[in-house]
């Protein structure tokens, strides 16, 4: 029998809503997918050409949708202005407000720089084709522009990964968050998710050749095994009291069945891509991708929504029921819808997946002639 019964106390609802989960998910995917676009576009590796196009598509769509989710979590988007008029540079979040626009601007500039040749070679005579050719602003080969945009975006992308991890890691009041493994696991799960996104997108756009898809799937399996390794290290830090915060988090959470199930679920999700890769490397690529995407999202859901369910002073756990409105399910669906809204025109109308032909070609779009 427990010698303390909490008779009366207060429940604190989560202050970071599912919008935050969506933001951390999408921005992580965007930055790491951008990294995967570099071999094909910046280093001109022929074997990566198509994979990098899918990576850029994923990076751009996620990078544009993520800040919207973040603004939504402020409850009143106009409040973002305060970040720039009264920045407190002791706060990682304040730094993030400078890193995000720096990254997104760099990503847009990089996208334009690497797609210039495709824009310039748009075939057809319609208005859209002409507009695309004009958007190339000439046909001169501007490698310096591409490289400058890539370096800028790599820098700000790394800063975004750093701040998103540190922002969570420095919260001493939440032992589950207060571990140096959080930034590492955020980055690794995001990388796994980005590779997964390429493989899932390929299911619809079919631009990868099979050897490359299998190669990516192997890379994904390796990343997910690293995530599993990170989990084992976290467990060891807690079990052997090598890190005080981790030990406290483990002591609190290990009592609860829901958290035990979550731990097993996470371990299976991390190990499954490697298993599938070994059993059916060719046929399992998109499934491995889907599992990795799910793992990246679930990791953030568990950290944020699960983590906020641990009272700092009270007994037990706070209950959480996903609201159906904007503060819950609708918010999650809305961000997913925004991502789709960005994906469809960018994939179908822009030259991200290859040069376009308007007016006479097979990729003719309604009303463009």
């Amino acid at each position: 029998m427990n010698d303390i019964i909490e008779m009366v106390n207060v429940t604190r609802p989560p202050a970071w809503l599912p919008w935050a989960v969506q933001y951390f998910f999408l921005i992580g995917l965007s930055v790491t997918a951008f990294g995967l676009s570099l071999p094909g576009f910046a280093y001109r590796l022929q074997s990566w050409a198509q994979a990098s196009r899918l990576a850029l598509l994923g990076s751009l769509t996620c990078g544009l949708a993520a800040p919207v989710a973040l603004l939504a979590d402020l409850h009143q988007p106009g409040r973002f202005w305060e970040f720039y008029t009264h920045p407190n540079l002791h706060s990682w979040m304040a730094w993030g407000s400078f890193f995000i626009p720096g990254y997104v601007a760099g990503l847009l500039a990089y996208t334009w720089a690497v797609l210039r040749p495709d824009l310039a070679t748009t075939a057809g005579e319609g208005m859209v084709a002409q507009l695309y050719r004009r958007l190339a602003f000439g046909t001169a080969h501007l490698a310096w522009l591409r490289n400058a945009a890539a370096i800028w975006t790599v820098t700000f992308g790394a800063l975004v990964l750093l701040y998103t991890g540190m922002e969570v890691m420095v919260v001493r009041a939440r032992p589950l968050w207060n571990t140096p493994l959080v930034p590492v696991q955020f980055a690794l799960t995001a990388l796994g998710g980005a590779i997964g996104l390429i493989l899932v997108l390929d299911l619809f756009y079919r631009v990868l050749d099979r050897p490359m898809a299998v190669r990516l799937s192997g890379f994904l399996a390796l990343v997910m095994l690293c995530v599993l390794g990170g989990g084992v290290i976290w467990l060891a830090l807690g079990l052997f009291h090598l890190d005080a915060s981790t030990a406290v988090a483990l002591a609190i959470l290990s009592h609860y069945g829901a958290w035990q199930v979550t731990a097993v679920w996470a371990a299976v999700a991390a190990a499954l891509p490697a298993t599938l890769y070994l059993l059916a490397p060719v046929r399992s690529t998109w499934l491995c991708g889907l599992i990795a995407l799910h793992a990246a999202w679930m990791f953030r859901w568990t950290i944020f929504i699960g983590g906020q369910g641990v009272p700092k002073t009270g007994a037990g756990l706070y209950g959480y029921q996903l609201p159906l409105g904007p503060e819950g399910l609708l918010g999650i669906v809305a961000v997913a819808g925004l991502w789709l809204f960005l994906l469809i025109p960018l994939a179908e109308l822009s030259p991200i997946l290859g040069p376009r032909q308007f007016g006479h070609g097979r990729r003719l779009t309604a009303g463009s002639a």
Partner: protein
Amino acid sequence: MVVDLARCIGCQSCTLSCIHENAVPENSFRTIVSVYELQDPGELPHPGEAQQSGATRMAMLPRLCNHCQDPACLPVCPVAATYQRPDGIVVVDADRCVGCGYCVQACPYDARFINPDTRKADKCTFCAQRIDAGLLPACVESCVGGARVFGNLNDPDSAASRLLVAHAEDVQVLRPEMRTQPKVFYIGLDQRLSDKVEGEPTLWRPTPPQEA
């Protein structure tokens, strides 16, 4: 603030007066008296005898913002909306607050929340508006047993300072390991309640927010 727990009867009049004074929305609390049923350990058994349970008793623990000298909520605020007044009271500039909730995460006492009406960070201010008018905080004014004592800790003659001196060996703060130097002191705090309580979870919670 000094809280003499032996004088607290858990009547929640502080909770209610705070709600009325500060227009705290339904299901949100700037202060609340947590109530615990504690089983004290029994005496050590003689050889061959079974362990006997000790006495069961109620324990009250008024919780509020601890107005820490080194508050964890202050450096994380991205727009410096949370600040410390010269008298040490930690307050939020609601005009500047963006409702990002980072301070809510950083507070080790779960003392902060996002106000569902304003969508901005909210917390106990020691009723700063009353202090500035020469009054006591509403919770202190309404405390039936006189458990909450408010005063200037820099003034050795204040009631709070004298109480701390008189009970010097029995004064504690919540979660000292967080090194935030809380300025809410407790007299007679059971050690088992000073950190995250390891016990049966809450029997009573506020009702969930109504769907709009």
